[in-house]
């Protein structure tokens, strides 16, 4: 088994990384800029969507997730699922508590 | 069936007991089935010779499906039933009488809508739904009366509620079921379920003076003090045999010279004892936390006297 021709190695170069970096800068600027506008409850949603796009780009390109096998994908996504679960159920629990009326 | 489940003394007990019975039947059935088959196989197929024939069976989809589906159905029934009964436990009727409960390390205070107060003793009327509105002053406690099948944790920083309709006249143990520190196992109280007549009398303050169930006059002050010692929860913090619990022991207390927090010393006499009970913070004994609650308004002068008489006997 030769060491160089296996599929895991991807010579992504300056052009891709540079473009990714610039995109991230732009998105950062966008999130900071849009704080000037008020979308009400959607503020946090918009901010999180932008952050997730940024995180996605970092994972896919900088971390080469794009070129990884299914197994790595599973283990990259499963913790996120558990995180949503933890947050989701905790929130559901807290906000379905019925206040005791005195 | 007293070894198996405690007597039921509230309206809620029956529905809890029913589902418990159902789960028990299911459990016993499966347990007996599993044990019997296991023991049966173990005997029937025990190794009698080294080259004993065995069957090459790897799986059987039909039987596997059956033993997945049947427990699944039973479990769903148990879930639904448990939930229905739980709903009942959680939702008090509108006409329930409210009682405020304060749990603190390590005693229970009750305040009734008439303004009456009682300590470590809850008075309720037979067949009248009560709703307890509970808060905690420090850590988590839990209100638990086995005979009523009710339990609710009491968190600091908010109110929790619990309701029941007592169905039997009598006195029941109220236990703190959430670990709350060194006095946890002594954070006990009584629930007195009174008949409507007795309850009315208690409310008027006749006979049952300041919440005491025992008629006061019939016993000596020392005996009365002894009862108060356990009923009022002194025992949670004060031992009578020299052991250090939370507060100083009562053994040999009377007549000794106590060193106080500010370095001064004081002779333990009747006045000091009275002050310690009514205003614990006034003279703090060195080396103890300021955890003792004031018993002003809770213990009458008579009762304090009785307690002092009792403490004096502890040598």
């Amino acid at each position, binding site marked *: 088994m030769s*060491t160089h021709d296996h599929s895991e190695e991807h010579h992504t170069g300056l052009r891709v990384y540079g473009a990714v970096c610039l995109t991230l800068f732009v998105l950062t600027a966008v999130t900071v800029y849009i704080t000037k*506008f008020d979308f009400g409850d959607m*503020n*946090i949603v918009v901010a*999180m969507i932008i952050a997730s796009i940024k*995180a996605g780009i970092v994972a896919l390109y*900088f971390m080469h997730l794009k070129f990884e096998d299914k197994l790595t994908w599973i283990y990259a996504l*499963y913790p996120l699922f558990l*995180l949503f679960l933890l*947050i989701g159920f905790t929130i559901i629990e807290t906000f379905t508590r019925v206040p005791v009326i005195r | 069936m007293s070894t198996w489940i405690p007597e039921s003394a509230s309206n809620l007990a029956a529905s809890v007991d029913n589902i418990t019975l159902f789960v028990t039947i299911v459990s016993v059935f499966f347990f007996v089935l599993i044990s019997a088959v296991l023991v049966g196989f173990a005997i029937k197929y025990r190794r009698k010779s080294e080259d004993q024939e065995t069957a090459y069976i790897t799986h059987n989809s039909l039987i596997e499906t059956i033993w997945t589906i049947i427990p699944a159905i039973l479990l769903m029934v148990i879930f639904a039933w448990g939930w229905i009964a739980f709903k009942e436990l959680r939702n008090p009727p509108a006409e329930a009488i409210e009682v405020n409960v304060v749990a603190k390390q390590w005693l229970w205070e009750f305040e009734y809508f008439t303004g009456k107060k009682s300590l470590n003793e809850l008075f309720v009327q037979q067949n009248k739904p009560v709703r307890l509105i509970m808060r905690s002053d420090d850590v988590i406690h839990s209100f638990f009366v086995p005979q009523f099948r009710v339990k609710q944790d009491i968190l600091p920083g908010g109110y929790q509620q619990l309701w029941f309709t007592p169905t039997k006249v009598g006195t029941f143990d109220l236990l703190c079921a959430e670990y709350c520190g060194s006095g946890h196992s002594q954070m006990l109280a009584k629930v007195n379920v009174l008949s409507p007549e007795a309850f009315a009398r208690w409310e008027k303050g006749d006979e049952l003076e300041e919440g005491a169930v025992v008629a006061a006059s019939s016993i000596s002050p020392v005996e009365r003090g002894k009862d108060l010692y356990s009923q009022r929860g002194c025992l949670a913090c004060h031992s009578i045999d020299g052991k250090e619990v939370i507060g100083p022991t009562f053994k040999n207390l009377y007549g000794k010279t106590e060193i106080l927090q500010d370095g001064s010393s004081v002779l333990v006499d009747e006045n000091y004892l009275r002050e310690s009970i009514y205003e614990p913070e006034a003279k703090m004994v060195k080396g103890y936390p300021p955890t003792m609650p004031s018993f002003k308004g809770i213990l009458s002068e008579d009762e304090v006297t009785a307690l002092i008489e009792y403490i004096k006997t502890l040598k």
Partner: protein
Amino acid sequence: MSTTAQHAESHAHGHGLGETVTHNAAKFGMWLFLGTEILLFGGLFAAYALFRAKYPDLFYESHKKLDISLGTINTIVLIFSSFTMAMAVSAAQKRNRKWLMILLGVTFICAAAFGVNKYFEYSAKFHHDIFPDTNIFFALYFMMTGLHMLHVFLGMGIILALIIMAKQGRFKEGNRYTPVEVGGLYWHLVDLIWIYLFPLLYLIG
């Protein structure tokens, strides 16, 4: 029954694993570890979600005391360091030792800059009597950024180790740049978490 020998790889160093296996195993192992990191921060994110939903006004008022421009600068610095780290991995793949060291060096400097910036931020907070026990928002702020800072320090240690290894000429032939790639993955995660912390703490609209 048949027990044939494993193929050519079995002679190699270690306990007989080929380098490809080692490389993939290390990368996969790091991904697993990153999953645990996400859940480690997860507790804080969950607490954040809960308390923000409970006390929106407190969060809004308190966040005004944070310095958005410092935060933005740090975000840019960290993204840039991620970029140089990715380039460093690429240099390692090409066995370009010089560029590898330069890029790792730049990454390290960025990380340090992030730390210095954070130091100023923290001391400004302390100066204004803002501590972890001021209120829930600042408790979250200090816990989240503090835990993140811990990861930055750890990352700096890793990068430093990589620079030393590169200097010793460890990443020459074969797949031996594995440590760079794995260290890089870790560093990107540090960036990734900051990407979320930044809007959550600084940009509450």
